[in-house]
């Protein structure tokens, strides 16, 4: 293979055509959805009429970000097997989500995960705490996505960073504002299908170079970069670090508000359960084939060129797409990457907005008393607030290294959101004090320990040594949150919460009274 002249960085006709087609299609869907979005149940939960298979695709769409598509392919291309280890970590949360909380969350909640935590507790303190945990998670995740979006679009289309971020914000806002969860769901489905199709095609093109023999591909990689490329490298040098990251990735999924929210779009717990199996299938398939694209990029394009275009390797998949499928296919892959960003940010915005409107406005400010129409109006207002905030933060963090923010989002999700969810579902004695203690301990410890970690303290603030040695604090912050929740619950009594636990049990396990 000869080194190629890449059209990356310049807007080609095919890229623009595919890009416009995708935006047009999703806006048509939004227009259709907008006419079906009137009540809160339609705005937040698509009227609970989404099928299990569709929700499985939409869950996959929410979860497979540009970071996992371009990032993992790049990691495999530049660092070989380590990228595969990383990919497995992103999948193993799904079975845990199914075994531990998917069905109870579906049965107990209405629109947000805070519904579940607050089910039998005092509304005001628990809603405030849970909404803070949820919003922090969503916000850090969104900043990482927005900065990634700006950089990617700059890299692929040559568009100015600020315009790219504002453009993503505007299109995404249109989906959520007008089409609510119905439009967001269909955008996720379209994106998931396009992404799975695009990556499958790319994998096929790579394997065709080696007459569909994986061994042939691995031999080519080993021939070019030595057998070390196919063996574990430096990613897991420290087992404690690896386990802490693994915990955050696995159990953080169980506290991601935009994922949990999707369970309210299906009619019942049985459908919620089935949708997790579909999602796990799609995401697992995606993580199985994405390393093939990465290895293909390193064997066919070469690590030197990939790293020259983008030091993080993010352009490995687009480069190999251009080499094997020409400019038209590159345009398609670039448009798919763009759709991926749009869909993920839309899901995050809807989750952030519903924490503001459903948890804070309805349950804290209005103490549960507001008409459906009022709540929808406030939800739309909250969408605008969150969307504008996302764009501004995206621009504010231009040029910053925000990779740690995804880790931070997962750390807060598994330390602040997951413990109170699990405790409120399973432990009769869990009460308001316990919930507030668990959430605040988990959130505060995650943020403080990440600031003191090598990622921020050394690499961002340039101190010589980190105060806290681990890059991901989950192994400390999550157990501490559980402990704080247990101690505070045992130290106080809330007979009402205990009495309501029975109420909760019939609903949790049998779905009696579930919405």
């Amino acid at each position: 293979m000869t080194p190629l002249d890449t059209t990356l960085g310049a807007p080609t006709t095919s890229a623009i055509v595919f890009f416009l087609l995708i935006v047009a299609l999703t806006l048509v869907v939004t227009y259709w959805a907008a006419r079906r979005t009137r009540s809160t149940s339609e705005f937040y939960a698509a009227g609970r009429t989404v099928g299990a298979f569709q929700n499985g695709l939409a869950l996959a769409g929410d979860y497979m970000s540009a970071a996992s598509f371009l990032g993992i392919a790049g990691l495999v291309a530049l660092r070989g097997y380590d990228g595969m280890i990383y990919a497995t970590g992103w999948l193993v949360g799904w079975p845990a989500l199914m075994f531990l909380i998917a069905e109870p969350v579906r049965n107990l909640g209405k629109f947000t995960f805070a519904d579940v935590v607050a089910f039998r507790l005092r509304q005001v303190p628990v809603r405030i705490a849970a909404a803070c945990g949820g919003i922090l998670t969503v916000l850090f995740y969104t900043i990482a996505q927005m900065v990634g979006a700006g950089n990617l679009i700059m890299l692929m289309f040559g568009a100015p960073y600020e315009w790219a971020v504002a453009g993503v914000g505007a299109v995404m806002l249109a989906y959520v504002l007008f089409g609510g969860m119905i439009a967001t769901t269909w955008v996720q489905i379209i994106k998931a299908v396009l992404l799975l199709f695009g990556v499958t095609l790319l994998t096929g093109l790579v394997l065709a170079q080696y007459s569909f023999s994986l061994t042939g591909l691995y031999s080519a990689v080993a021939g070019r970069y030595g057998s070390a490329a196919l063996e574990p490298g430096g990613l897991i040098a420290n087992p404690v670090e690896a386990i802490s990251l693994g915990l955050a990735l696995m159990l953080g999924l169980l506290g991601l508000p935009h994922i949990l929210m999707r369970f309210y779009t299906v009619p019942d717990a049985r459908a919620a359960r089935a949708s997790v199996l579909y999602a796990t299938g799609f995401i697992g398939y995606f993580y199985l084939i994405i390393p093939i694209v990465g290895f293909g990029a390193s064997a066919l394009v070469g690590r030197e060129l990939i790293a020259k275009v983008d030091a993080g390797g993010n352009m490995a998949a687009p480069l190999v797409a251009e080499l094997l499928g020409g400019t038209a296919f590159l345009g398609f892959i670039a448009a798919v990457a763009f759709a991926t960003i749009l869909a993920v940010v839309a899901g995050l915005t809807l989750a952030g907005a519903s924490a503001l409107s459903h948890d804070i406005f309805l349950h804290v400010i209005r103490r549960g008393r507001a008409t459906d129409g009022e709540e929808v109006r406030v939800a739309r207002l909250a969408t605008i607030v969150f969307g504008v905030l996302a764009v501004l933060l995206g621009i504010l963090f231009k040029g910053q290294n925000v990779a740690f923010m995804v880790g931070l989002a997962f750390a807060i999700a598994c330390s602040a959101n997951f413990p109170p969810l699990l405790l409120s579902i399973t432990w009769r004695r869990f009460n308001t004090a316990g919930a507030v203690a668990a959430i605040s301990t988990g959130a505060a410890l995650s943020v403080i320990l990440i600031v003191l970690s090598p990622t921020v303290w050394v690499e961002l603030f340039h101190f010589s040594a980190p105060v806290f040695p681990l890059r991901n604090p989950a192994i400390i912050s999550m157990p501490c949150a559980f402990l704080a929740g247990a101690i505070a619950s045992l130290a106080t009594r809330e007979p009402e919460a205990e009495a309501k636990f029975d109420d909760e049990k019939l609903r949790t396990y049998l779905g009696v009274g579930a919405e």
Partner: protein
Amino acid sequence: MTNTPGARQLLASDAFRRLVTRRWRVSLFLSLCLFVLYYGYILLIALNRPLLAIRIAESTPIGIPIGAAVIVGSWALTAAYIVWANREFDPEAKRLRDTLTTDR
């Protein structure tokens, strides 16, 4: 709804308690399998790197199929839970729910 005598009777019944206990036993067993599968893989990499470099074909080390097996295994555990829940849990949950409505 849960204040009806039927609901209280159902909550106190052996059948309901058995169902809840069984649900968590299955969940925790599968979670344990998942932990062993994933953290076993991570610890294997951390502690016995040379093992993963053993060649199974001309240049394919065994680490690659092992990584793929973690992904496929995770999916299989999820499928196992669905099969159990659809075959065992749902019919019993429905039976118990029905006792509640016929009571009234």
